[in-house]
């Protein structure tokens, strides 16, 4: 295997190697950015509320469809991004408020019920939008192919990177400039005592869940012009988000950023160098990291 690898690398360094590396690096980065938007919400919900929200990938997909509908009505892509995020936030809040809340502390029950919602939302997609694949157009202003020297890249991917960076910055401020973060963790540690310290626990959980879902919806809409709208995409993309959350450490912003980029890059270069081991190359590093640091790169030890 090492020999094959060396041969491939050598081969790549001949000719257009520089270009190849740049392109793959950029691809990895941009895909990482998209995965970040998906995974960050999962990480929040997971790390902070200890809910394994299997519905997250489906939020992402439903968000895409809602974004498409908004785009069709209003013709405004940016409105679609926001709207998709908000509607999914509402869906998430509804599910948290009326279902998950009753099951606090019952991990398996929560997993089960979020799985129920996967099926329900999937059927909703079939009912409302049908099984036809759909494609979403991006605004002309961000849909060109940019050239820098001989290096070309789609500007839309650049746009996704910018949005992801903005979201990361926003979350950082939110976490560090408000006491919200510690209120949430307190509530997870000890619901009763947190409310005994004046934390409005139901509200806190609702906000976290809403925020996490919002990110999924937003990421979903952003993925529209890139991945297309395809019934079934939700469960295909969910493992990527899981990997990010696991490797980065649950609930950690820093971890999610780093792990997303890592996943993006490993996925890219893995598929480049070892196309036959595409998934192995994604999950093996993860297993190794976990063997050494079970809590992930930036997870809290408890």
């Amino acid at each position, binding site marked *: 295997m090492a020999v094959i690898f060396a041969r491939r690398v050598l*081969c790549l360094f001949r000719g257009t190697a520089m270009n190849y590396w740049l392109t793959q690096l950029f691809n990895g980065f941009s895909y990482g950015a998209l995965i970040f938007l998906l995974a960050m919400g999962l990480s929040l919900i997971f790390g902070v509320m200890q809910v394994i929200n299997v519905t997250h990938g489906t939020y992402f997909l439903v968000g895409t469809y809602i974004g498409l509908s908004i785009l069709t009505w209003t013709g405004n892509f940016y409105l679609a991004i926001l709207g998709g995020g908000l509607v999914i936030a509402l869906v998430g809040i509804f599910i948290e408020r009326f279902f998950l809340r009753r099951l606090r502390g019952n991990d398996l029950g929560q997993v089960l019920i979020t799985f129920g919602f996967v099926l329900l939302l999937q059927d909703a997609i079939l009912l409302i939008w049908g*099984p036809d694949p759909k*494609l979403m157009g991006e605004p002309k202003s961000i849909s060109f192919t940019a050239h820098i020297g001989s290096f070309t890249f789609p500007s839309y991917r650049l746009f996704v990177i910018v949005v992801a960076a903005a979201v990361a910055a926003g979350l950082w401020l939110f976490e560090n400039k408000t006491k919200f973060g510690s209120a949430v963790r307190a509530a997870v540690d000890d619901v009763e005592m947190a409310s005994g310290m004046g934390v409005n626990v139901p509200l806190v959980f609702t906000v976290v869940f809403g925020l996490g879902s919002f990110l999924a919806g937003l990421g979903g809409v952003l993925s529209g012009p*890139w991945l297309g709208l395809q*019934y079934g*995409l939700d469960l295909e*993309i969910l493992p990527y988000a899981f990997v990010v959350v696991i490797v980065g450490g649950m609930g950690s912003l820093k971890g999610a950023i780093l792990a997303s980029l890592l996943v993006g890059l490993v996925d890219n270069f893995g598929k*480049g160098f070892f196309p036959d081991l595409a998934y192995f190359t994604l999950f093996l590093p993860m297993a190794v990291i976990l063997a050494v640091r079970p809590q992930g790169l930036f997870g809290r030890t408890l």
Partner: protein
Amino acid sequence: PRGDAAEKGPIRIGLLTSKTGVLAIHGTHQMAAVEAFKDKYGTTVAGRKVEFYPEDDQSKVPLGVTKVRKLITGDKVHIVMGGLFASTGYAIAPLGDQYQTPIFVWSCPDDLSQRKRYKFVVKYFSCSQPQHAMAHWLRKNKPQVKKVIIFGPDYAFGYESSGGFQKVFEDMGGQVVQKIYAPINTVDYGPYIGQFRKDAEGMFVTLAGPQALRFPKQYQQAGLRDKYVLVGNGTNTDEFALAAQGEDVLGWITAHIYGGAAYPSQDNQEFVRNFKKHLGNKDPGYYAEGYYGALVLIYKAIEAIKGDVENKAKFMEALGRTKVTEGMPGGPKVSDGYGNLNTNVYIRDVRKEASGKLYHHVLHVYENVSQFWSYRPEEFLKQAVYDKDFPPCKFCK
């Protein structure tokens, strides 16, 4: 001796398809095709009523097996038709012999009509069948395209389609210089697109299911539109995806056993009209046509044996020597004696109507194409089945 059809009750036909999961779209198209079929041919054949038993394999191969088993043992169907993946075809075929029940594999696993034949299995076409013709057309019409990259899904369907192309293409002096197979559920094609060799002139692409949607967009975004001459499998631009694909696939050339919804033959237009009634005015593609066509063939075989489907051997034999020249949206079909059909292959490109709607324009029709192309069957069967490494990639460095 008591051939009274009514006494034996209805003929039960099991239909395996994917109504949920990633391939759900194909299921809806196929079920609409079944409705269109009923409109034209009714639910009585050879004096017996026909009942259809649709089953959803949820786009999962193992579940398809379970469902076929259920159709045979639970619903006691006389024949099973379906299987979306080539893999499903391979997986369900053994059940035909196990339960002594005819299975009409609607999809295209090559080997089921070549080296791995089953007594109770026939199939509609071979994956490589149209792509032999594609290669021939490309060599003849665009001889400047000499070096070609192959890109396809990483399973039987991908290997067999591109294997057929490679075989004929190289036999006619072309060179395949790179072969890349991506898992069917690949989400981001960036890593693959980044690897395409710059020194090639053309690409042969096969896309299955959801790939047809994501790949063209990402290919276009990478700025490769005008870099390569792109030819490929008819599934790339099948009508189910065509509307969503938009301009990204304009000009793509593909080969398939169906000429497309716009193909002006009378049989086809009637099929398209009927189909549209059942699916919100949408165009049928090959997934619908194949399902429909297979049912036509099954009816013909039932008629040929006067409805005596309980006699399985006779029924199998009838299926194995069908010859239909009329009523088929994809043109005449003739059994080749190996459990497969000789068929028309259409070379189409994607064009745009004034209204902006995309459609297939047929550039050329190869008639009565055998799964063995112009090779002698005995010779052909001596080589291995088309696979990831066969034909070997002589010109890849």
